[in-house]
């Protein structure tokens, strides 16, 4: 093996230009891989990593204000309980610091050893820390706060910031509208000589897999606690994901697809390199080298090349993607992977080396099995059957030359097709993300406005000019009663919900709000999958007032909202306990939205905004996403350009004699460029067609399914996008042709003629 490696190094040194070209390809593909690994690992593990670092509890119970002793008596009796602590949460507190202010502050008076948030800078508040506070990272960043600064509530109370903390139980400010600080509960009690009530209990299970038994006992022991809500880690993840979960899922799915494409590129590049060196294999076989030694030699030279190139490429891809990924994680109150990324990158590096070694060794093994004479003659050159009927000009000659190397042509076309597919997918993804943030229809919403008005106002709203229909809409976040860890969002419309909100029906039928017996429900496919529901089964939901409401599932809808964990139910089942109630307003065609909004305000609506879409429309968040997509696009474009230039450079080198003859007969740089254009067109045209088809029928559906199998996401590129990609590839091809022609024509004609 050592001899094979030494031989490989010698071989690479003997042809440094060729080695550099091959290494460039590996660098590009590895960069793609590095970017993919950074994005997918960072985002998929973000919540769990942050939850672990923050020591997020397994269950977060919220309830009305209660005496701590009373709650402790009940909580202490729960099984599978490792530890618990309590908080008092005060909302809508005015907070100001560093010239910034908000009326939407939240103060958590904390106590106990375990807090459920991670301290990133400074220290935590202690039991006697009356003047200290920990502020959340999002607040600190947005308001430019540091440890040692002061944050105030009104003119009377101020705290010194002793630490910067983060907890992934919510997205970060300002993506979250409220900003949170933590102060010491015991210190407040000591200073003001009173006992704080509690309204939150943080519970850590001994055995997290058995949190359900803890929850079941907690429920059975909770009579009398008002507005009780259990949120498990899984529920927190879903709730946090509401702002960006689908985006993350899409990005991760996209990265996985990109990883696969990068793998294909690596294999193709290595394979093409072997094809180019078939003559060498013939010579090796002619001098008596056995087949295995030939294959090992090629595999070793591939590995020797791939080892440093892989490191470089992975580092490059990681650097490009780490910034935007980190920014996205910050927005989600999650932590970047840091050193934990080394493991996956190391694995990726091993994959790069292994793929290149295999892709070099396997074709060499196969080639070495062919007759030696054929190898020495370059037997991979096809007979010019395909050339018949082609133009006889330089472009046609280029086409014929490309078709003369079918293996290389196929490899180049494969890489270009993968690039085309990934770029098209990325554009489709970008469009979808815009739709998800802008278009309520992405949630199946068919109404345009929501007005914060009492249900009784619905007739008045209907009477407004420009209003086609209006009905009260209720929303309530609850938990599944038979699986208390599973969150459920109940949505109720008075009357028929279909004219207002109707994600596509995947199974069963629409609900009848007036049906006899158990009230009916349409459940999201995400919920159906989580709870094993189907038409005919029973959905049981635990409401915050302690009541269990049961529904007969009659339909399954492909809803995107809340990870598909939604249920459309008759309004009367949720109207009393609803978290949110508003009037959903549908406009007539051509009606002025502004005029209707003004009318709603006149009716007394506290707010009359547009219907919400599937994800946040926060500008900073969307800008981060755009940066991430641009980073992936940049790496992908480099791969594409490399593939083109590699194919052309090899052709130009092999056919330098032919080109020299052409030049000797008066052909200028333009003719040579045209010839190379023919070479590149032979690969590009089928690659673009195949790439677009691949995106439309394979990668797009696969990504959508990976990201949100519970919903219908359209990841098909628009015609203009497809055309744009085709033009882009053509421009890259033209650039590559021009560049290589320029380099080729710098060489004196006589040098090429000598070779001929």
């Amino acid at each position, binding site marked *: 093996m050592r001899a094979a490696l030494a031989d490989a190094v010698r071989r690479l040194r003997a042809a440094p230009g060729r080695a550099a070209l091959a290494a460039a390809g590996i660098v590009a593909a590895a960069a793609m891989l590095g970017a993919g690994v950074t994005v997918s690992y960072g985002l998929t593990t973000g919540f769990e990593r942050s939850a672990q670092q923050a020591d997020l509890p397994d269950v977060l119970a919220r309830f009305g204000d209660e005496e701590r002793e009373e709650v402790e008596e009940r909580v202490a009796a729960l099984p599978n309980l490792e530890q618990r602590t309590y908080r008092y949460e005060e909302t809508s507190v005015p907070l100001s610091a560093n010239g910034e202010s908000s009326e939407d502050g939240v103060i958590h008076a904390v106590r106990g050893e375990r807090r459920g948030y991670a301290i990133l800078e400074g220290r935590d508040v202690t039991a006697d820390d009356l003047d200290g506070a920990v502020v959340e990272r999002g607040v600190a960043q947005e308001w430019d706060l540091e440890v040692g600064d002061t944050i105030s509530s009104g003119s009377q109370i101020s705290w010194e910031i002793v630490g910067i903390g983060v907890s992934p139980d919510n997205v970060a400010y300002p993506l979250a509208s409220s900003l949170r600080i933590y102060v010491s509960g015991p210190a407040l009690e000591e200073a003001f000589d009173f006992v704080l009530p509690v309204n939150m209990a943080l519970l850590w299970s001994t055995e997290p897999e058995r949190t359900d038994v803890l*929850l079941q006992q907690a429920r059975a022991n909770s009579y009398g606690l008002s507005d009780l809500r259990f949120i498990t880690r899984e529920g927190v993840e879903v709730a946090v994901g509401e702002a960006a979960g689908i985006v993350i899922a899409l990005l991760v799915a996209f990265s996985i697809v990109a990883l696969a494409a990068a793998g294909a590129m690596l294999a193709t590049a290595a394979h093409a390199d072997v094809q180019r060196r078939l003559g060498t294999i013939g010579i090796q076989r002619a001098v008596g080298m056995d087949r295995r030694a030939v294959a090992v030699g090629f595999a070793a030279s591939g590995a020797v090349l791939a080892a440093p190139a892989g490191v470089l490429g992975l580092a490059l891809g990681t650097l490009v993607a780490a910034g935007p990924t980190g920014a996205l994680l910050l927005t989600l109150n999650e932590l970047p992977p840091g050193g934990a990324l080394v493991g996956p990158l190391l694995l990726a590096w091993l994959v790069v080396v292994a793929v290149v070694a295999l892709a070099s060794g396997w074709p060499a093994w196969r080639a070495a099995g062919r007759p030696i004479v054929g190898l020495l003659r370059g037997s991979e050159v096809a007979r010019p059957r395909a050339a018949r009927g082609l133009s006889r000009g330089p472009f046609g000659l280029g086409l014929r030359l490309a078709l003369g190397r079918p293996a290389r042509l196929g490899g180049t076309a494969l890489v270009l097709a993968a690039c085309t597919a990934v770029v098209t997918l990325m554009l489709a993804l970008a469009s979808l993300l815009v739709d998800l943030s802008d278009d309520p229809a992405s949630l199946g919403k068919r109404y345009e406005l929501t007005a914060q008005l009492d249900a009784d106002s619905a007739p008045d709203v209907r009477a407004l000019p420009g209003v086609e229909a209006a009905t009260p809409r209720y929303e309530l976040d609850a938990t599944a009663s038979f699986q208390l860890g599973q969150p459920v969002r109940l949505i109720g419309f008075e009357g028929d919900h279909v004219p207002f909100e109707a994600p596509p029906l995947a199974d069963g039928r629409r609900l009848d709000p007036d049906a006899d017996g158990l009230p009916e429900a349409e459940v999201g496919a995400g919920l159906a999958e989580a709870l094993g529901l189907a038409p005919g089964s029973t959905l049981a939901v635990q409401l915050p007032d302690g009541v269990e409401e049961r529904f007969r599932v009659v339909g399954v809808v492909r809803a995107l909202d809340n990870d598909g964990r939604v249920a459309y139910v008759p309004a009367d089942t949720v109207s009393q306990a609803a978290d949110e109630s508003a009037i959903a307003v549908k406009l007539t065609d051509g009606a002025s939205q502004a005029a209707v909004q003004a009318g709603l305000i006149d009716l007394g609506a506290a707010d009359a905004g547009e219907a919400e879409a599937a994800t946040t429309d926060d500008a900073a968040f969307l800008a981060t996403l755009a940066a991430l997509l641009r980073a992936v696009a940049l790496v992908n474009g480099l791969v594409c350009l490399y593939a083109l230039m590699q194919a052309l450079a090899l052709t130009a080198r092999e056919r330098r004699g032919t080109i020299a003859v052409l030049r000797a007969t008066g052909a200028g740089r333009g003719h040579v460029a045209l010839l190379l254009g023919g070479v590149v067109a032979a690969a590009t045209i089928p690659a673009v067609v195949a790439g677009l088809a691949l995106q439309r029928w394979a990668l797009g559906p696969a990504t959508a399914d990976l990201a949100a199998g519970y919903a219908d996401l359209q990841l098909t590129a628009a015609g203009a996008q497809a055309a744009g990609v085709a033009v882009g590839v053509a421009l890259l091809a033209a650039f590559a042709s021009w560049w290589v022609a320029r380099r080729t024509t710098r060489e004196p004609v006589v040098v090429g003629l000598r070779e001929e």
Partner: protein
Amino acid sequence: MSARGLATLLLTLIAAVLLSACGGGEDSASAGGSTRDATLVDEDNDGLPEPGPGELLLDRTEIAPAAPLQSEIARIGILNDPQIRDEESPARVPFLDRLGAPFTTTFRPHEALSTQVFAAGVNAIAAQEPEAVLLPGDLADNAQRNELEWAAAVLNGERVDPDSGDPGYDGVQRADNPDPFYYRPGVDAPQQPGLLSDAQQPFTPRGLGVPWFPVLGNHDILVQGEVPPTPELEGLATGDEAVERLDEERLERLDVPPDSALAPQLVQNLLAAGRLPGDTRTIPADPARTLVAPQEATDLLRDAAAASGADLRARAGAPDRLDYTADIGPRVRLIALDVVNRQGVSRGVVTPDQRAWLAEQLEAAGDRWVIVSTHQPLDSSVGGPEVLELLDAHPRTLAVVNGHTHSNEITPRDDYWVLSTASLTDWPLQGRMLRVLETRGGGAAIETWVVDVEGEGLAGKARELAHLDAQGGRPGGDRGEREDRNVRLFVR
């Protein structure tokens, strides 16, 4: 399947293979029997009890110094408070359970399995080879005839059909009951599909095979252990209407007394009307649910115990009282006192007649060692302290054994020991063995150890549920301290 899912599956398979290779898992966890060999603990507090090391006997010498042991003079098993319950009965108030203490005994997540748990307890005690078994009260839970009959059948190894009403389960734990304050095994965690229907299946227990001696408990003759039967309650118990959910407003308005001693009055008030306000449901009536009067209960228990070979010598002139004496071997005399208050409420009462009769029996016991048994602890019963003083004065008093508290506790009295044992109703579902020995120098000693019920089948599931119960014996500390369980108690 995702890569993560695949990895989890593989790890699970590997763990399962390793566990089976090590002989761990279910078999060990289901072990019952003497806690001198192994006992169930939840050291890691994950809600799942697992076998822990056995507990050897500790010497307790607060009354007398340790002395060399000589011959065994009696070997007695104790099974406390099985509270066999007809959980489908309409004469119950499970809806009060959600109010917490002092109503936590009105519903238990494993309540449908009381006959199976009792049978497992009987098996575990029988395996310790006692010559007699003492049952210090509350064989039944709700003063129903069918409950007492089931209990007697379990003890005598006769066929038990624990179902009442129509065949199949029809109580508050039905999966279709949308009241989340009840554990519904079909849908709630830990899900146990089929548990309730399995619990209704007839079975034939092995029985004790030795004489058993019952003590009357408040639950044996008082509805819910609190209220004397009335015609209205009789109608409720044998009727076809069950209250499943007390009217919510009324439930919230209930003036729960801060003093738990007054809570029975609330139950009494609720039940006394014979009709409870709330959501009612029509159920199949069952005359076997008839409530027993004290005379019926004592007759039933005397007859059933006699079938086991027990010779209960009744107190003359008090046929409705289960006061009696019995010899367990030639050197030990058992005196049972029925201290259940016939007027209602769970607190015990010792009448002057009983005290006088007890004094006579102590005198008559001669030089036999005496064990006195009541259901309610004497120190908290009306007239109980006086009885204790009487016992203090009798030099051959060995121990007072009571039930009712559902917890393991052993306390020294002047010259004898007072023993409470965990129940077969709440965690830790244990019985107790007493081995009486004479010591050199004319004294005596009791070797006692607690016994876990057998953990196979439905009893094992009941044990798991009892352990999870946040209102049960686990948080209540019913297992007791180390010195309340396996000890050697010296007397004189």
